[in-house]
């Protein structure tokens, strides 16, 4: 660039607009590159979402199917009721160990009956195929129907998790080479049974409704009890966080004077919204359990902790909805002689309600997915083995929650539990999705534009 060009205002005057000069071409290339960065960033985000959802679905859907085997069990009176009195107390004395051989025998008989050729010659070899829960299932049946002792009864029992994994492709002949629980010959037998329809893969309701099971019985574990735990906890959060959050928001938005105290509350709320969730767990442990002696692992305590955690979220969204109600509404009410309190409760609050509910549901969804604080107050997964006996027990008795149950499964060594963890995530996400859809519908239907 020469000095002359700086001084002549029409330096570019003779260049045509229709031809791009070299510099503009370079600048446009830079522009296109920059735009590409943006597109790639969005694409990366979407890609991660797709991979994440893909991983969840592909790994988790299997948990909703379970392999069952149909077996005829001879309820041998000689083993189950030695005295022959059909006295329920006597029958109860026979533990599941007494039933295991009967179930195994039932399956073993099928080999001969169907003429299957297998090197497995002993009844005990059937152990690898049958879930440990089968004996308990049969025992429960006998205790409920003592008069059936002596009959041959057909049962639909769970297979062992290895057999289940084999049918789902998780367990292969190669992978069982080092497995002491099952041998390739067992898998050959499973193939024959599958052909005969004795072993079948079916939809598994008990995954949704069942309780957690011991480490070695992955095939039996279900989410049911922890769903109830989450449910009771969410009730606590709803019952506390909604009224307290709304009350606090009304105060801050409508009544609070401009002073130090109000500032202090505001600062506290915005900071609490960003405090790590685990710190709320520490708070719950120290205050609710150590100090106030509330029961450990109780959904009530979990609900209290999550309430404190979600309150800032709910307050922030509630204040936004209150703010969106135009001042003219308040003026109109005050103008006809309503008190400030009446103006707020009769006019502003109902108009802000859809927004408040939307915010609350989103807050609840956040609470439902939270794990870390629950672990600290003892709501760990392995506790979710018994159904609560009624409402009070639902709040006070030890239980777990969906995310804590998933965490527990993820920690266990048996890969069969990984499938259940993914499946648990599907259930959890279905709940979250439902809540978010409700929130969206609420917003769409009742949202007002002023």
């Amino acid at each position: 660039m020469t000095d002359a060009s700086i001084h002549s205002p029409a330096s570019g005057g003779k260049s045509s607009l229709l031809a791009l000069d070299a510099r503009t071409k370079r600048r446009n290339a830079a522009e296109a590159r920059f735009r590409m960065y943006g597109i790639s960033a969005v694409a990366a985000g979407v890609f991660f979402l797709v991979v994440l959802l893909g991983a969840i679905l592909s790994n988790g859907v299997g948990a909703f199917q379970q392999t069952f085997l149909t077996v005829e069990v001879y309820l041998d009176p000689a083993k189950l009721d030695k005295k022959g009195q059909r006295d329920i107390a006597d029958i109860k004395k026979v533990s599941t160990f007494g039933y295991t051989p009967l179930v195994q025998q039932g399956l073993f008989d099928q080999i001969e009956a169907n003429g299957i050729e297998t090197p497995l010659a002993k009844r005990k070899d059937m152990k690898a195929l049958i879930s440990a829960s089968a004996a308990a299932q049969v025992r429960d049946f006998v205790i409920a129907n003592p008069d059936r002792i002596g009959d041959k009864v057909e049962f639909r029992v769970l297979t062992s998790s290895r057999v289940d994994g084999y049918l789902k492709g998780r367990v292969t002949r190669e992978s069982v080479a080092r497995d002491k629980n099952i041998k390739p010959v067992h898998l050959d037998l499973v193939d024959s049974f599958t052909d005969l329809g004795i072993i079948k893969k079916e939809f598994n309701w008990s995954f949704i409704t069942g309780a957690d099971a011991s480490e070695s019985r992955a095939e039996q574990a279900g989410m049911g009890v922890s769903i109830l735990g989450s449910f009771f906890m969410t009730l606590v959060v709803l019952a506390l966080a909604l009224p307290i959050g709304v009350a606090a928001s009304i105060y801050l938005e409508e009544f609070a004077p401009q002073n130090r105290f109000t500032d202090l509350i505001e600062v506290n709320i915005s900071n609490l919204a960003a405090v790590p969730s685990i710190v709320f767990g520490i708070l719950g442990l120290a205050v609710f359990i150590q100090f106030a002696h509330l029961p450990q692992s109780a959904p009530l305590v979990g609900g209290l902790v999550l309430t404190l955690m979600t309150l800032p979220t709910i307050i922030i969204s509630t204040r936004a909805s209150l703010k969106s109600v135009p001042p003219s509404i308040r003026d109109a009410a005050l103008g006809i002689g309503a008190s400030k309190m009446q103006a707020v409760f009769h006019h502003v609050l109902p108009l802000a309600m859809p927004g408040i509910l939307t915010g609350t549901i989103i807050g609840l969804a956040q609470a439902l997915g939270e794990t870390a604080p629950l672990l600290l107050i003892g709501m760990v997964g392995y506790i979710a083995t018994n159904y609560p006996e009624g409402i009070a027990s639902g709040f006070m008795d030890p239980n777990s929650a969906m995310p804590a149950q998933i965490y527990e499964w993820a920690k266990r060594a048996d890969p069969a539990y990984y499938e259940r963890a993914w499946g648990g995530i599907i259930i959890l996400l279905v709940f979250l999705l439902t809540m978010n859809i409700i929130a969206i519908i609420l917003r769409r239907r009742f949202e007002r534009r002023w």
Partner: protein
Amino acid sequence: MYDVHTHRAETNVDDIKISANDVQVYYGDTHAIKDVSIEIEAKCVTAFIGPSGCGKSTFLRCLNRMNDTIDICRVEGQILLDEEDIYDKRVDPVQLRAKVGMVFQKPNPFPKSIYDNIAYGPRIHGLANSKADLDVIVEKSLRRGAIWDEVKDRLHAPGTGLSGGQQQRLCIARAVATEPEVLLMDEPCSALDPIATAQVEELIDELRQDYSVVIVTHSMQQAARVSQKTAFFHLGNLVEFGETGKIFTNPEDPRTESYITGRIG
């Protein structure tokens, strides 16, 4: 359709800088500019006047394709700058805007130093090879923007710290720094006080020596003070276009007369 009253007597064809033919602008479904044809001369101040919402600003923004940044806006017709169609596919709006600079209603200095505000345009267009070149451009532009004396001691202070009138002159200097051929000004004085307005008007009169200036204003007095040609817009139509003196003293269209005498607007 209305007749457009254009007075073409002494205009030489060579002096025509911008020539618009049958320009239509749509905002979504709204037809904002209808059949506007106008010829804007070089080295002359042309004023666009008219009531609010008449389309004068919209039309101004067509002249350097600023409307491209609005998604729903669509422009039809032909606008020639030095006999080249600026809406031709081959035209890069970036290159166009370097030739047709713009000053906005509200002063909008970047949150940078005064120096960087001025140097921004020359830097992106590669007008300076060295720091020394840039210093020369900055000083020259600030002088031309009639603000050099006020800011020469604080070139590295933020541009946002200046007063409103100073900010607007800074923005004009910034536009001048890229060596444009045409300067578009969209109500450049509407956010300024009377003293600052007078300073900016004086500046516009000086700029006429080098540039073709198009100014949108809602103040008829301002149009009368600074412009040689005036175009009156009404409801998206160009109603009358001619010598400023003639428009204000002897308008041909009754609507122009009503507006000037204060009956519509």
